[in-house]
């Protein structure tokens, strides 16, 4: 495999200090190449905080420690805030859960997309506008001239999320972190948004970290899945082998889903085992591509 784009070794995140300190992420290590990696886990497992730490967007009360957190050879933890601004959006960008909260309600949609591009590229207004329109078209927004001039409250959730994708892709980043990008959307719209995202990522060779609580969705959409439990990665497995997962936590999650093809009277529930907290990660051998 080629050199990984992002390397994380032994990442720890501690919220607060002293007695009240919460160790939210405890020794997470993984690599991301030009691929789609899913991170799944329950709420509170540390998956979103890991995503935020990569962008250095953790709250200031968080103590981030890592042996190594390199993005394309750049040690992220040693960057100044000014240097980070050159990376955020430009090299790594982030898609958040709900377009209702992540778009600026007082700015026209087109202007937000234009701004995202002009922050990182010195181009004329007209050229940026042309690019923004092309980008809106690429995320399959019909009639993009009209949508360009709308405000976020005037568009549907699915369209809002496609606008978010357009905003995040227009600076042509090398990696995108998507934190529950489709959880606020209707199921039928979800597929459409994901296919737009997939197509654009494939065209540009952009890497993706997809954070979600939905195992099936991640297994379907990503190449590789990291399963997080209590701040650690417990299993690292190819998405298509997810049904062969061996960690009892991953198995428990899979078994607790009601299934269309297997009617059951009582669903199995997860019996948590304290040793999971500190058990080593189970790696599955991956075939060389």
């Amino acid at each position, binding site marked *: 495999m080629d050199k990984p784009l992002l390397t994380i070794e032994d990442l720890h995140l501690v919220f607060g200090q002293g007695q009240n300190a919460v160790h939210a992420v405890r020794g997470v290590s993984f690599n991301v190449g030009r691929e789609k990696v899913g991170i799944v886990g329950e709420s509170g497992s540390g998956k979103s905080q890991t995503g935020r730490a990569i962008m250095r967007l953790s709250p200031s009360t968080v103590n981030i420690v890592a042996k190594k957190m390199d993005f394309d050879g750049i040690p992220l933890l040693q960057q100044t805030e000014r240097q980070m601004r050159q990376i955020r959006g430009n090299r790594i960008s982030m898609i958040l859960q709900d377009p209702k909260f992540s778009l600026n309600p007082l700015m026209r949609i087109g202007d937000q997309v234009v701004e995202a591009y002009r922050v990182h590229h010195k181009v004329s207004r007209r050229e940026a506008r042309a690019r923004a329109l092309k980008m809106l078209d690429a995320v399959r927004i019909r009639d993009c001239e009209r949508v360009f001039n709308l405000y976020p409250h005037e568009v549907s959730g699915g369209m809002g999320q496609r606008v978010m994708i357009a905003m995040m892709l227009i600076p042509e980043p090398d990696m995108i972190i998507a934190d529950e990008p489709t959880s606020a959307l209707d*199921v*039928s719209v979800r*597929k459409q948004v994901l296919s737009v995202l997939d197509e654009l990522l494939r065209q540009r060779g952009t890497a993706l970290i997809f954070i979600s*609580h939905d195992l099936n969705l991640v297994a*379907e959409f990503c190449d590789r899945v990291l399963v997080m439990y209590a701040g650690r990665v417990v299993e690292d497995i190819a998405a298509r082998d997810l049904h062969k997962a061996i960690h009892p936590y991953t198995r428990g999650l899979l078994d607790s889903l*009601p299934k*269309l093809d297997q009617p059951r009277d*009582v*669903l199995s529930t997860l019996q948590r085992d304290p040793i999971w907290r500190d058990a080593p990660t189970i790696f599955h051998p991956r075939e060389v591509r």
Partner: protein
Amino acid sequence: MTAFLSVTELGIGMGQDDQYRRIIDDISFEIGRGESVGLIGESGCGKSTVLRCIAGLNPDYDGEVALEGVQLRPRRRKLELRRMQMVFQDPYASLHPRKMVRDVLMEPLVVQKMDRSEERVSEVLDAVGLGSRFRYRFPHQLSGGQRQRVAIARCLVTEPEMLLLDEPTSALDVSVQAEILNLLMRLRHERNLTYLMVTHDLAVMAHVCSRIAIMHDGRIIEMISDRDIRDGRAQTPYGQDFLNAYRPG
């Protein structure tokens, strides 16, 4: 035999003059006692509105809602309200943040003038698997699954015959979802409850309900069985498209 709940030509309109639009239109169905029926459809098709009309939260509907053959007035009477209770989607939003679990559970008892309130609170907390030690907790001291259990306990405390479930597990983690679904199935069995549930998750729907209505643009376009959902089979073209679009994989 009369059905437990029968809904006849239920409709609701919103807006005035040329803005007038039928949000739901000509909805008729029946549910037998102890049966579970589901409503599915795209977001915005009116599923939750149907639930709210039946619960009495949306009094300005037309058409008829009858319980065991007795027609209910749009403004429900207290005793009628007691017989049907609703569980909402988001347990973080549906519990009062400054009321302790005990107060949340006591309130319906006071309103309904029911006796033995302290005992009832303990019993219902046991029934949902929390235990009475939870009675002095505030919602922020509970996890999402525990809150949803409290919300279910709040419904059960008035000893209803029917629960209206509006996406009861979609805000929860899958491991917690399984626990809540098991709880709902057990309670239905123990108390012979009747369920009307809205969810967008076909697997959850097929797990809980035996008959499922597919809604589109405020109308029920067809009624299918859980078997049909599992096999992905519908009669109408829209129903078929819908099942194909919503099936995982």
